[in-house]
């Protein structure tokens, strides 16, 4: 645990070092930023990378506001599709929460054909108030852009993760499945918006009981599994004994799927991206996959991005 803390600390210091150094040496290099997605904002003061912080989580029944830190960041608003369908006060909530002089605001919504009209109208309204508005784009929205439309904003961020159905017992890796990703990118010609790239650096375990998802455990990697788990042929692990595992109760017979990413896979992602991008935003600052910190893998990868 102590070693892990040192590694995390190293990330922030290392990040600082590489961040400043590379910016000076390489002009027009790519920027690296991080998403912060928790409702309670706990960010270290020495973390100086640009941050995209989810400040508002708007669902049909609730609005969760995150108290913002005293530092520069880009506010992100998450809007649930049900909220989009049923609420008429979304713009007002945003205007009340995010000051008018904010340089950029990002909106995250997995809009569909049925919510497209309302979502785009909302974006237009937001656009009138803020200087720069960007929106997240899912892979399916990139592939089926004629059906889902292109949001009327200044730029987009392609979310290159969560590309499979996590409830599906046959899903191999919910966070990053390159075969699945290739299907979405096949035949890609262009996208009318300038796009940045969001890459995953988190991990989690999905718990199945009698083939149904019963819970998720954040931050789990395969290295954390011990002899109370047995590897199965489909990439899943069977729980051999009822026990508590990272605060969760698992039962004998349960199965878990560990969804994680490796630097090797992330490098492969960069090769797959068929468009130019200026910024990579890592999802996410909190609960990141601690395996990525070992041997400075993540530092090296950040440097690689910045210089390529």
């Amino acid at each position, binding site marked *: 645990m102590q070693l892990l803390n040192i590694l995390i600390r190293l990330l922030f210091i290392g990040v600082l070092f590489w961040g400043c150094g590379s910016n000076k040496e390489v002009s027009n290099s790519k920027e690296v930023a991080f998403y912060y997605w928790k409702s309670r904002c706990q960010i270290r003061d020495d973390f100086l990378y640009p941050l995209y912080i989810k400040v508002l989580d708007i669902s049909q029944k609730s609005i969760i506001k995150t108290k913002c830190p005293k530092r520069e960041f880009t506010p992100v608003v998450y809007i649930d599709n049900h909220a989009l369908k049923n609420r008429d006060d979304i713009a007002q909530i945003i205007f009340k929460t995010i000051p008018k002089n904010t340089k950029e605001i990002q909106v995250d919504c997995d809009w569909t054909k049925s919510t497209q009209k309302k979502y785009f109208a909302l974006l237009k309204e937001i656009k009138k108030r803020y200087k720069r508005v960007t929106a997240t784009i899912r892979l399916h929205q990139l592939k089926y852009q004629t059906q889902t439309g292109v949001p009327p904003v200044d730029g987009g961020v392609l979310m290159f993760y969560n590309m499979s159905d996590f*409830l599906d017992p046959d899903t191999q890796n919910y966070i990053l499945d390159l075969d699945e990703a290739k299907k979405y990118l096949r035949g890609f010609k262009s996208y009318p918006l300038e796009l940045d790239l969001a890459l995953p650096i988190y991990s989690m375990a999905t718990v199945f009981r009698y083939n149904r998802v*019963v819970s998720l455990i954040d931050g789990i990697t395969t290295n954390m599994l011990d002899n109370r788990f047995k590897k199965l042929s489909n990439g899943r692990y069977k729980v051999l004994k009822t026990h*508590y595992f990272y*605060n969760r*109760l698992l*039962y004998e017979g349960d199965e878990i799927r560990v969804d994680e990413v490796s630097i090797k896979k992330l490098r492969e992602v960069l090769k797959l991206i068929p468009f130019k991008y200026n910024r990579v935003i890592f999802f996410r600052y909190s609960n990141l996959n601690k395996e990525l910190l070992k041997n400075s893998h993540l530092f090296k990868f950040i440097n690689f991005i910045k210089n390529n």
Partner: protein
Amino acid sequence: MIRIVLINLLFIVELFSCTTFWQPTYINEADFNFIDNSFLKKEDIKNPLYRYAHIPSWAYDKRVEYYQKIKKELNLQEWSSYLNISKDKANSIVYKDTPPTAIKNQKKKEKFIAYKRALGLIKDYDTNWKEVLKSFQSLIKQNPDRFFKTRIAYNIVRAYHNLGEFDKEIAFIDSLQKDNSIVWEWIESYRAGAIQHRGDLVTSAYLFAQIFATHKSDAYIGYYDFKIKTDQEWNRLLKMAKNTQEQTLFHFLRAINPKNSELLELKYMTQINPNSIWVKRLLYLVAQKAQFRAFLLKSGDYQDYYNLEKKDLENYIDRFLEYLKANPNGSFNEYLLSYFEYIYHHKKIPIKDSKHKKLLEYIAFVDSLKGVDENLVSKRLKDIEEIFKGSDIIKSLQKYTMVKLSTLYPQNSIKATLSGYFKEYDRFFDGADFRAGLNLKKLNELVALKDKRDKNYIEKLMLNSKEINLNQNLINLYYAVLYTRDGRFQKALNYAKDLPMPPKYYSDIYDGDKSSSMRVSLYNPFNVSFSGNNRSEKYIKYSHKKFLKTIIKIQKELQKNPNSVMDNLLMANGLYNISDFGNSPMFATIYRDTTIVNRNNLNNIHKAEKFYKKVLKLTDNRELKTKVYYQLLKISLAKEIEKNSKKTQYYRKPTFKEMDTIFELLKRDTEYSQLYKKLLEYQDTKYFNKIKNCATFKYFN
């Protein structure tokens, strides 16, 4: 703490619930429940903590609400007895801030005022807890009596807790002397929470388990705040238990968490102490869940309504049966095994207990019915009801019987309809679908059933809803409407003439029951306008009676002179307007759902079309022809909607978005294209120039 649990629960709900349709909050409120709960205490049966919830967040609200009620009641009892006033008076001064004039004892009154003043510092948001603490600390120094001391102490505990001063909070509580006040339950709950905050999860889990098992006014806190995170903690907790009963209680708390496996917990608990009350309680809960799933499998509704897979449902019941086979001892287990083998595998296993044996025999009797013998079924049902007198099972027995009978009565009969609706009578049945589905045959049968003198038990049950038991005025109204819909206007008038006189202003119709007892129109049903019905009118233009008298007059004129242009036009307009697409559909529709195409009322559109076409043949008047062509275009649109609504199961009307598709389809229709071309030949007319700016016409374009 609860907040964190809730967020997790909400997430899981979000994850798995994908339907918006009505579901019972608790499984034992579902259609059929044949699991006798006589081994449970009455208060246990009502207790929402011992019931399985479909949607955990709804259950949380209900559970809190249930305990808040008890909490308030017990608190008021203490206040009323201490202040020597009624509970109502105590309620107004304690909970509603009414001046405490009712308190006759001057000393107590002064104490009460001081206490309330300090309590006023606690706001819904942004409470200054330091100030609250100071204020109550000063009150406790004034040496209050036992009653106030406990309450003041409770507020000091609250303040410490909200200030995060858990050590001080615990030390303060431990320095107090416990009494019999209900307030002590709340103090104990705070203490368990403070211990949890200090990081001693095992002790706090033990205390929360005790709170869950023993507290009258806030037991739900015991469940929601029971928290164990590691095997070491769990093992330490088990060791803390004074006996196996307590150990099974800890397992019970894990079992009712929707993230955990109640079936495995039941297995573990049975191994520890099969006779524990917690095993019985959990067995009852699991049995209810398995029962719900077994009936869901039978109904086939699992995928559409509950997003459940057949194999999941089967898996659950199979595993429960495995458990029952491994643990067959005791009459309850014996019954459950026999019951589930029957409803799931249709296998009859003999049981000793005669009461439950009869219950299973009755269920099998209903299942075996091939035809309706109301007298026999009435007798058998009454006999079994007698055996289960006072039990909730009676309702399920009636529902089960009625559902079966609804499949045996002739289709389109009123008895098939009523027995089909019976299982909804005690829930959210508002009769709207029942009324919408009425036709003349069913209405005649309903009236005959209502008037029948010696109704059997089944018939009495069928009519046991105020929504079904129509009064004479409504019967007259429905006859008038249904005869109008069928074009039998004279018959309709015979009923309409006895209906109440409509008022002058439309707004007056909303007084009392008038809106459901009469039908009126704000428009002239013999006129067709090119603009939409914007409902800005205030005066009632036509009563049902007036409409019928007028249309009968037109009918007579047409009999005398079938080629009268004006009468053919008026008849066409009248028929068009009483359809769902016209301005006065209320004259021919019992219950109008604006999202559904009323198939029964489409006939009038087709009748109107014939009259309009006749007008075209009879007249050379270009203005009139324009009007008629426009009406025919509107009819072609109505027909297109009808055609498309047939494709959907519920005969839904298209949404605005789908209307675009309908208009596209319409434009491919040859008959429509010819009509549209014809209409364009009349571009020089005044009427055309009026309609060309109308929104609907632009769609036709």
